[in-house]
């Protein structure tokens, strides 16, 4: 059990590719931390540097207060679940799980005890004599998990361990992995590019883009208090709606204006608008925070372009010039294409972003 600290870690491949850039992160003891970001943003690279599989170009990595930057993987006391599992095809499940223990010269009976125990935890105790080729994808994944738990590591690294599973198995494995984490209490770094996975599992989420950390925070933080346009857009399905607005002042009050909307935001926002008088801002609003209302209270009225029923709710899309706005509305009454809808914003959920820095303002 330990903390993991990455200080200014940079990884450069060849001359041009900078996969990870001045990465700073502190993972608390027993924390379940999720690295989230689009494909190619450097998640795997960051994790491989923690494991010692990739040399850092610059910076330091500490586990507890041990500097492990230059240690080979075997001396770091980390364990890892690989993106493609990497279970050894020529070893039985038992040998796969027991491999690390054997290398540690653990006595035979103890190895057997440990293997049985972790196999029980992961529900593969009946499969110990089989070879990986005789297992289903989900079972192989459990072997990879069991193998990783068996060493009782200080740091537990998981690189998209669920990405190869079918949707249903994926959801149930989430629960199991969380349960295992609660049991083992190992500090965990979990990589994914599936945001619902991240939201449901993480204590904290690290959002990455192009090798850089964009935001670190609890799932609620990154969802409701997205730090930048990128995060607001990346998190949530459908993603946040963005509207370009101008800030206008009218006898001390600020209004947000564009050809379709013209309204006065609540006071807590007005505060931060002071520095942006007569400037241009991006308004971000999540689909579920736009509500249907009557004509009188509407901030925005438009024709429904399509509506997608989702069972529990419907997603209504309207078109403003070149742009689509998506709204999550209750399933009833059904809204038909062509129908005019009157919309209002839940004021306390509005986010405003500076178009130049793309960062949120007012935090």
């Amino acid at each position, binding site marked *: 059990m330990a903390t993991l600290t990455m200080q200014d870690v940079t990884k450069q491949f060849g001359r041009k590719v900078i996969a990870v850039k001045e990465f700073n992160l502190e993972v608390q003891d027993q924390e379940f931390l999720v690295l989230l970001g689009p494909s190619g943003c450097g998640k795997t690279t960051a994790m491989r540097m923690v494991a*010692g599989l990739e040399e850092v170009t610059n910076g330091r990595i500490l586990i507890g207060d041990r500097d492990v930057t230059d240690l*080979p993987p*075997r001396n770091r006391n980390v364990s*890892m679940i*690989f993106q493609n599992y990497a*279970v050894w*095809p020529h070893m039985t499940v038992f040998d796969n799980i027991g*491999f690390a223990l054997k*290398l*540690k010269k653990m006595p035979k009976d103890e190895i057997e005890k440990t293997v049985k125990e972790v196999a029980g935890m992961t529900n593969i105790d009946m499969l110990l004599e089989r070879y990986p080729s005789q297992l289903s994808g989900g079972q192989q994944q459990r072997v990879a998990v069991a193998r990783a738990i068996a060493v009782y590591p200080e740091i537990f690294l998981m690189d998209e361990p669920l990405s190869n599973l079918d949707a249903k198995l994926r959801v149930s494995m989430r629960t199991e992995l969380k349960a295992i984490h609660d049991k083992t209490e190992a500090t965990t770094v979990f990589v994914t590019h599936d945001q619902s996975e991240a939201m449901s599992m993480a204590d904290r989420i690290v959002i990455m883009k192009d090798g850089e950390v964009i935001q670190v925070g609890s799932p609620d933080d990154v969802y409701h208090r997205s730090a930048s346009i990128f995060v607001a857009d990346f998190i949530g399905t459908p993603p946040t709606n963005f509207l370009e607005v101008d800030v206008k002042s009218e006898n001390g009050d600020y209004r947000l204006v564009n050809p379709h909307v013209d309204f006065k935001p609540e006071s807590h926002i007005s505060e931060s608008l002071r520095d942006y008088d007569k400037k241009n801002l991006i308004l971000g609003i999540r689909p579920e925070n736009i509500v249907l209302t009557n004509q009188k209270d509407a901030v925005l009225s438009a024709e429904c372009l399509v509506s997608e029923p989702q069972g529990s709710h419907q997603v209504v899309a309207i078109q403003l010039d070149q742009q689509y706005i998506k709204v999550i509305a209750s399933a009833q009454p059904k809204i038909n294409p062509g129908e005019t809808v009157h919309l209002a914003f839940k004021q306390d959920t509005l986010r405003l972003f500076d178009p130049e820095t793309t960062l949120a303002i007012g935090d």
Partner: protein
Amino acid sequence: MIKKKPTSLAKIIKSTIFYLFVTTLGVGILLPAFFLVSLSFLSTREAYQFPLPLLPALSAKYSLTFGDRGYLLSVYDDFDDEYQTVLDTAELEKMSVYMRSQIGAPYDIPDIEDRIAELESGTDPVYFKARKNLLLNYDLFFKVTRDAVPALIRSLQIAGMTIVISLSIGGMAGYAFARYVFIGRDALKFSVLFVRMFPGVAIALPMVIILANMGFYDQPIGLSLVYSVGSIALTVWITASIFMGIPESLEEAAQVFGATKFQAFLKITFPLALPGLAAAAMYAFLGAWNETVSAIILTQFNPTFAVVVYQTLLGAVGHVNLAAAGGLAMAIPSVIFTFFIRRYINQMWGGVTV
């Protein structure tokens, strides 16, 4: 119960034609080899008949009658369906030797004496049969040929050493080409192949002096050093693609779980590559085992088996069957080797199924 769709007639006909075709192809490929095998079991007399018998006879039918110079020995000829006179002599010794070495169906002198006694007592001609010694040529080859057995052992040694040298040295380089990106990688990989462009015979000539200086001339180790030149190049290419087929993450996983880089190779990559390496070994084996010319140049008193067979072939102008037996004796180890390694062939140029 799972009900199966009845197989359609068209399908049956199609697969019959397919198998007929494959069988014909197989027979066509094996036909020359078949004649070599058959020839190696023929007696000298059979081997010089026309047309050649397709299969060796299992016994010889003799007839004995009085002749001008003593007794007239005839042998039954299957093809012409008649007895043909082969010998007219009074010397029983000569007759017995002829029956043993030319007909391949030995008959001892006391037995011949018995038959002659029958002839003298009025049965004319006397018919009798003798079982053929099918392995006669092999027997002769190993007995007559100067040190065939030690040469065989030497050849096995040479092949073994060649496998060890080329797999260890070539395998290391193959691993480097598969796992690392480094400056000059492609150029180096092609220059390894370049070695094979210089004729092997031409390497052998100057090697006489080089090996003599090292004390390796006319020694098995000297030949394996020469053979390894060509087979290292091939091994590098083969092993490079084997290692490329084994995901690197398997090795990395071992490292994370406590293995050193070397342990990870030994415990993970090596066993997975083993089948492919076995196939690479087959090429090294065949190359060393079958090579003749460098062996002629680089040996003097300790020839390899291939050299012995080659010399028999040159010297056996009147004994094609003997040469065939020698050639086959030589082919048997490599065919057996091939048979066992065949199933690993799939893995040789990459694609270890994980």
